[in-house]
């Protein structure tokens, strides 16, 4: 079943066009990776889907309904959650408060404070610390937990591995199957190509606002990915 479909999505920053007619679709329970160099339009794509950038209504369909014109709070209500690039925790809130605010809409589902602490036990110990006192990896766990607290059906993750030690990245990626086990579709945006290929079942490569390559992650040829990534 198609959970999300993006149809000919365009995006502009003033006169600058960031996306040129992007189309893709994501099935429920799938992990899809979007890779691309800096400035390829990956974050713009995620922000458009999450409702931070307004679009024409028919450009994005979620669960069979056009949602392109909805704003972020309305999309969260429907089950689209974004883990923003750079984590962006609320610095004046504690770890626990950051998680609670993610769940404040009260969408029903498997995720609760308790379940997030099970997923990342380290956060339980630091629950009452200010969020900025945590290490980068722990902050990323809070950011993921915060998004999960809204019980999303589609989880969008922007650059999970950015600025984190490889071992921490591995630890975080190891939890993706658990998240998926709850029937959530996950989109990961990555600059780390190997990580993206390993973690996903389907892969899109963006280049200067176009999709330059797509296919089942395990079947794509290394050289084809390299060519699509760098545009050589």
């Amino acid at each position, binding site marked *: 079943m198609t959970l999300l479909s993006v149809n000919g999505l365009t995006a502009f920053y003033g006169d600058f066009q960031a996306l040129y007619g992007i189309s893709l679709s994501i099935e429920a329970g799938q992990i899809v990776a979007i890779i691309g160099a800096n400035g390829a339009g990956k974050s713009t794509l995620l922000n458009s889907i999450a409702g*931070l950038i307004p679009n024409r209504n028919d450009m994005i369909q979620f669960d069979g309904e056009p949602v392109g014109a909805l704003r*972020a*709070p309305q999309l*969260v209500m429907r089950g689209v959650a974004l883990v923003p690039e750079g984590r962006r925790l609320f610095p*004046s*809130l504690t770890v626990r*408060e950051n998680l609670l605010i993610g769940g404040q809409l009260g969408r029903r589902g498997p995720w609760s404070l308790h379940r997030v602490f099970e997923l990342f036990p380290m956060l339980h110990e630091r629950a009452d610390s200010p969020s900025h006192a945590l290490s980068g990896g722990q902050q990323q766990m809070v950011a993921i937990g915060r998004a999960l607290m809204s019980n999303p059906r589609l989880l969008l993750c922007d650059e999970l591995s950015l600025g984190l030690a490889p071992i921490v990245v591995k630890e975080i990626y190891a939890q993706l199957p658990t998240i998926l086990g709850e029937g959530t579709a996950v989109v990961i945006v990555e600059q780390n190509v190997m990580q993206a290929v390993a973690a996903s079942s389907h892969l899109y490569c963006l280049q200067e606002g176009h999709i330059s390559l797509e296919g089942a992650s395990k079947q794509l040829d290394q050289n084809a990915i390299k060519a699509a990534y760098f545009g050589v």
Partner: protein
Amino acid sequence: MIGYLNALIQGLLLGGLYALFAAGLSLIFGVMRMVNIAHGDLIVASAYFAYFVMQMLGIGPFTSLLIVVPVVAAFGYALQRWLLNYTLGAGDLPPLLVTIALSIVLQNVLLIVFTADVHRLQAGSIEIASWAFNSELSVGVLPVLQFVTSVVIIGALQLLFYKSSFGRAFRATSDDQQVAQLMGIETRHIFALAMALSLAVVAVAGVFLAIRTNFNPFTGPLLLIFGFEAIVMGGLGSLWGTLVGGILLGIAQAIGGQIQVGLPFVAGHVAFLAVLYFLPQGLFPKVSQ
């Protein structure tokens, strides 16, 4: 000497009101980074509205709060939601210009409706009731009531901000508006609620002030300055700091008035400038992150 002790006590009690003006102002600035130049005029407008309600219903100023506070809060919500929200997001200038204009409009509407005559809210016998410690030193019931009210309101705001889900949404919005939206928070609604809360607080302060002193349509800007001074002295970002800032301002004014009748405002400004010079972060600076 006893005169100075008296001034100290009066200033302390008056300072609670300044802290409330400041709390309303810093609430708005904290949540939406907006400086509301019309803040003082909204305080004065609340006092006039209380005057109007008292005349219409024949009730006292304290009873009038039951009507004034909710109506002013609702007005604040509407003002933010359907006017001031449209000025946000395009830099600091649009909200400044629009609230300056609002200030001018409010002053002139009050001038047309209530004339330039000074008004005062009559509270009856409580105005002159006092506790006498000895023949020279006594403390008025009204100033004590107003100070206690101020401390209770500041304490309640503190609880609201740090212990409720409502306050959590305020703080999150203050930290990062975009990510707050990703949490399902309608920031436009939160902004409007913040303005409603701010004006509810200043409506109480406005009514208390209007019982104490005369006011006219042009009193607002002075109150705005008192609010700013209390915030800066206390240090942005701490409600208890704001209370201390308000009290310092009140004490400085009262001591100034004790030295010479014409000095209270000058003394307040001097104290403000002194704090700004020696402790530019205020007495209770926000802990850096």
